[in-house]
């Protein structure tokens, strides 16, 4: 049995392929807090902090999770992907580029969560229908775009990524 006391602890996390360590005040610290406040990875947003809005979404071993409702200690040893991990060598990920090209980013607060949800979807289902896209981002709120351009961006990314693979 593993136990963490109420006292501070040094936690190792694998974020975007890099081993990182953070000093936590205790096991009660959430993954979102560690990413933003300990590791300076502020690309992960927190809007509601109660699991309703999806803006804090990160991928844990490829699975979308709400980092505001995940304890950092619970994901030790797992691969965490944040929005900062998508661009490679200064080049944007095709989904990021599609969001820009489709005008799917306005204030940008929902974008990291939306883009990571799109990544999880396209890895599982490279050619999703419009309904599948809508269902997949059902837990992500956007208060600017009205979603249409976000859906178009994911369709564009699917098209471009599908071509790249062929």
């Amino acid at each position: 049995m593993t136990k963490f006391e109420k006292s501070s602890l040094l936690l190792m996390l694998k974020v975007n392929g890099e081993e990182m360590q953070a000093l936590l005040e205790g096991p009660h610290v959430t993954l979102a807090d560690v990413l933003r406040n300990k590791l300076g990875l502020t690309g992960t947003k927190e809007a509601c902090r109660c699991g309703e809005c999806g803006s804090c979404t990160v991928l844990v071993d490829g699975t979308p999770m709400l980092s505001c409702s995940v304890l950092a200690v619970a994901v030790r040893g797992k691969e965490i992907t944040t929005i900062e991990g998508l661009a490679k060598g200064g080049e944007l990920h095709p989904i990021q580029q599609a969001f820009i090209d489709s005008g799917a980013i306005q204030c940008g607060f929902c974008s990291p969560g939306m883009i990571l949800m799109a990544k999880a979807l396209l890895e599982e289902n490279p050619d999703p229908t419009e309904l599948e896209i809508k269902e997949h981002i059902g837990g992500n709120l956007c208060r600017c775009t009205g979603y249409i351009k976000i859906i178009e961006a994911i369709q564009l990314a699917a098209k471009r990524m599908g071509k790249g693979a062929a």
Partner: protein
Amino acid sequence: MSTIQLKKFEYYEPDTVSEAAELLKEYGGSAQIQAGGIDLIPRLRSGSIKADALVNISNIPGLEEIRYTEGEGYRFGAMTRLRTLDFCPVLKAKYPAVQAAIHQITSVQSKYMGTAVGNLCLATPASDVAPALMAYDAELTIAGTGGERKQKLCDFYLDYRKTSLAQDEFVTGVFIPEPAANAGDAFFNRVRTHADIAKITVAAVVTEKDGVCTDAKIAVGAAAPTVIRIAKAEDLLKGQKIGDDLFMAAAEEAERAVAPISDFRSTAEYRREMTRMLTYRALQEAFERAERSER
């Protein structure tokens, strides 16, 4: 946005069910079981629940398993995620109302993280999953320091957010009996927006033979302090020739059996009326499916 920080707690990852039960006993009610955490962490943050310790059961082997035995039924564990159930072809084929109740949950992240058992253990009357499982007469396996016990889901809820669980107990799994070959089901709910919890939920599972109802189970959510079965409506249906008049009579029984409140989601009056209408429609659809499935 809530700016409140989580209060400190101890954190455990037990390796066995009995270790988890011992921890619950040791803390005497001040420890919380953590499965997906999608409800637990926000509620700890808001202060609506308190915990000196969290007992994360996700490392206990076997709790994620799904097992279906033809002719017997379908089992899943306390750590089986909603997403896994949503995409389980057996669940969809054998218990479509349960799959429908899970599928309509909007947040995909909540389904990846959250568990069906976690949803049941919140004991919220507005659960969509509980009415569907209750209509299928699901049974819970409950572990404690004294061993294991079984309890029907329809007997599990005592009051609003109150279950039969003792301080050292937690639910380890769910068993849904094999439906009869001539069974049909239906699931309906009404919501303000799809991301919100239900204003009213109705699930029905029925069997029929030669146009006569041989069995019926109806469960209603968000219309009483707990999710409830509507025994009077079920009794009224059994042995009777099926038809719209019978469905409406049963639906009226359902309306009389509920005790809804008015809140910002809906009025009690609306909930009572929708209990009747959705029960009527659920019976129509469930018997239609039962007739189609009859060989």
